[in-house]
């Protein structure tokens, strides 16, 4: 049987960083991913990665304060401190590995401004920073010779002797199921964007890890905190990076007014994302938009700057909306973008389950609290990817493999999958169930929320789950059966959706990304705390966890 000291599920930035760290700490390490590592969604990050470099006169405390304020004081300050202190070293490490960061005139690393921060501390590679980092991390993965299972889809965890002791995975190319034994497992499975429709996220971002961990007994936290990005393209919902506003682009209503002056007179377009998205939605609802959109105007930035620093998003505008931002404003609107919540971990990536770690977007440390600052997520993946890799490797040194039967584990999973394939045709489709879920979430758990809407979604999710239990899988074959993969992913998504809706209903105040029209104020007295969900006998069980506050006392947020 395949066995590894440390098994990392997910080969995005967090996963590969964790793998490299685990290997460097002497563990027999392997990484498993449902797509080839360089196809992972970390690719999509356009804007950049934050770090406060001291030789630039910046300091980690300022970065931490901006992050805490951005989080609407829900972020855990000890964790934020760890991240912001480590940022500089992590950034330089990435540069040494080969990332082609843009430079300033003197040849030092160059920066750009990003939302919610008082100084420019976002380092970048054109407007494809995520891709640049991801490919370099893959180069390092090759260099380190780590075992990599590519296009292997983890369908379930194996739990015996009170521990997660392995996984079962589907080798997509052959349709074969394999059991892999592991002393420690690190979830680096990314976000859950596709739970919403539309979303800026890639089609593979389906919350698998959060759902798998949840079923194994892990605690999910801050699940109500779903970031809507202010600039997603009309139609496809593809992202137009904050880099555009960082470089100076305007947001305009249908009359060409820069409406942000009403909402954030100081920071204007660069207020934090939750604030900008709400302002846009308010304008759109008041009839000041066009076809449910407002405009992003880059024309005054000039063709040269756009081509040099925003070429990729210009291309996206041309390809997907037929609009060239050099010549015209492009129609945009708020769209689901990022999951602040996830598998609750400590600052070393450890979850409440022994031997189980998590890092990256699927985890919740919580450094983002109620709202993530742009360019803090790549940083999160690198810093906590590395920490969880090292700690999991050290922990594995103290653990023994659990001797479970691979054949039995595989057989259980085979039977479950065969049962799905055997379902009779009933006219329903996986895609219709998914769409039903996505639209319901986007209707009731978006920028503005209220009780009855959210209850409606909880109800609809029950119906969708019932449909899912009977939905047929058309492709019965073994080789590259993407139909089956989608069906399995939908199961994960429905579980994630439910935890989001119940968490949002539980929180009875407005904070960060959650704005409740029925509780429009932030209420620190009662709700300055995390909401956590675990899987109970009949459904999700809610609990409350304290927010760690070290030296920054909560205050009102103004931009």
């Amino acid at each position: 049987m395949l066995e590894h000291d440390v098994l990392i599920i997910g080969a995005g930035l967090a996963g590969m960083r964790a793998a490299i760290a685990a290997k460097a700490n002497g563990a027999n390490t392997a990484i498993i991913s449902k797509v080839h590592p360089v196809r992972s969604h970390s690719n999509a990050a356009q804007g950049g990665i934050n770090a406060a470099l001291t030789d630039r006169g910046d300091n980690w405390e300022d970065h931490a304060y901006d992050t805490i304020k951005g989080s609407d004081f829900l972020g855990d300050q000890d964790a934020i401190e760890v991240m912001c202190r480590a940022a500089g070293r992590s950034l330089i490490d990435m540069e040494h590995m080969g990332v082609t960061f843009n430079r300033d005139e003197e040849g030092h690393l160059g920066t750009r401004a990003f939302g919610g921060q008082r100084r420019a501390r976002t380092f970048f590679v054109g407007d494809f920073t995520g891709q640049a980092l991801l490919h370099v991390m893959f180069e390092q993965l090759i260099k380190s010779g780590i075992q990599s299972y590519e296009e292997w889809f983890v369908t379930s965890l194996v739990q015996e002797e009170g521990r997660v002791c392995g996984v079962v995975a589907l080798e997509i190319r052959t349709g074969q199921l394999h059991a892999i034994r592991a002393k420690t497992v690190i979830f680096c499975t990314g976000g859950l964007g596709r739970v919403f429709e539309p979303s800026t996220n890639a089609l593979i971002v389906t919350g698998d890890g959060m759902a798998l961990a949840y079923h194994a007994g892990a605690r999910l936290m801050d699940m109500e905190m779903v970031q809507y990005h202010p600039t997603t393209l009309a139609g496809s919902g593809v992202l137009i990076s904050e880099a555009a506003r960082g470089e100076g682009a305007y947001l305009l209503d249908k009359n060409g007014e820069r409406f942000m002056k009403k909402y954030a007179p100081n920071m204007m377009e660069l207020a934090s994302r939750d604030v900008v998205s709400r302002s846009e939605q308010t304008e759109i609802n008041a009839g000041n938009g066009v076809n449910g959109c407002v405009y992003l105007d880059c024309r005054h930035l000039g063709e040269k700057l756009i081509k040099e620093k925003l070429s990729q998003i210009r291309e996206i505008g041309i390809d997907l909306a037929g609009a060239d931002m050099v010549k015209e404003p492009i129609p945009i609107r708020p769209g689901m973008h990022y999951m602040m919540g996830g598998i609750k971990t400590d600052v070393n990536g450890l979850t409440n389950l022994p031997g189980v770690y998590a890092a990256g977007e699927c985890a919740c440390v919580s450094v983002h609290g109620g709202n993530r600052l742009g360019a803090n997520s790549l940083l999160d993946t690198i810093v906590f990817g590395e920490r969880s890799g090292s700690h999991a490797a050290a922990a594995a040194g103290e653990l023994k493999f659990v001797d479970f039967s691979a054949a039995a584990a595989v057989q259980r999973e085979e039977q479950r999958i065969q049962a799905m394939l055997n379902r009779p045709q009933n006219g329903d489709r996986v895609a219709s169930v998914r769409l039903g879920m996505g639209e319901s979430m986007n209707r009731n758990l978006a920028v503005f929320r209220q009780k009855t809407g959210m209850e409606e979604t909880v109800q609809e999710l029950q119906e969708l789950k019932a449909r899912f239990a009977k939905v047929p899988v058309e492709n019965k074959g073994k080789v590259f059966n993407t139909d089956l993969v989608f069906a399995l992913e939908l199961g994960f998504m429905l579980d994630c959706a439910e935890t989001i809706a119940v968490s949002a209903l539980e929180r009875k105040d407005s904070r960060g990304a959650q704005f409740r029209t029925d509780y429009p104020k932030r209420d620190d007295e009662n709700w300055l705390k995390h909401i956590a969900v675990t899987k109970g006998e009949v459904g999700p069980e809610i609990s409350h966890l304290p927010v760690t506050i070290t030296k920054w006392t909560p205050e009102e947020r103004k931009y």
Partner: protein
Amino acid sequence: MDLTVRVKRFNPEAEPRQPYWQDFPISIDENATVLDTLIHIREMVDGTLSLRCSCRSAICGSCAMRINGHAGLACKTKASDAMDKDGMIKVEPAGNMPVVKDLVVNLDLFWRKIVQVEPFLKPQGPEPEAEYVVPNEAMMHLSGVTACIMCGACVSDCTVLEVDPNFLGPAALAKAYRFTADPRDGDGEGVSRERLRKLSDYGGMWDCTRCGECVQACPKGVAPMDRIMALREQAIKAGFDNNNGARHTEAFTESVGHSGSLNELQLPVKTVGITNIPALLGFLPVGLRALTHGKLPPLVHKNIANVEFVRKLHHKLEEHQPEK
């Protein structure tokens, strides 16, 4: 708008194990990409259709395939642009790679070649405490190459790979250039001698015929051919000009003709006549290999009865070739 997507299907689990074309008439939004049409088919019409796709925005590199005969990204190609006057779009898997199922190809060899160029920065000397101080222009120039998303579109349409699977190919060579052109890689002057030496071997930079197909196919403007030419310049500068590789290329280019265009390739064969063995012998074995590998399908498959003879001849020639 209404259109028909003609998809080349292949299911290795079905009998007979033959690729076949299937038409899907659909109705879709004006702004739809070719990928949107395929997703629509997979979700709403036929769930057995397999393809890779993820980002929908030309960044993950999953969805390279041949659209109307040329490689490109399905998510970067507008359906309305790809449609012919009868509203038809022809979609088939990327070329030069074995098909796994439908539009999914096996990229194992593609990745092996990437690994072969040792794709990680190898600086000599101690690392600086802070970042390497290098000119922005150098980084901007490299970013033009690191923009490569490893989609394989260039490899799909490379005319040399079609006849010589040993060739590293445009993506791996562009990747190699990303390091040889990096001021941080190699010696103190930024010269990556060891890399350039290895890349000058058989199958390396000198085997490209400069047909330009990869430049056309690349959805990210990487222009692999230009990078290969830049590699050659670097190699010559570093003293690797007179080698087998260089000579091999010259011979190949001379006999097979520039640009890899299939018609040009047919010309010499047609002119001398397929039975004129002595004249054919004048052509390089590689040219003949092209023939036997079906690079000239109309000629080989339709007109020639004695293709087996040509193949045998070709094998004989291969046996008697001097060591490469």
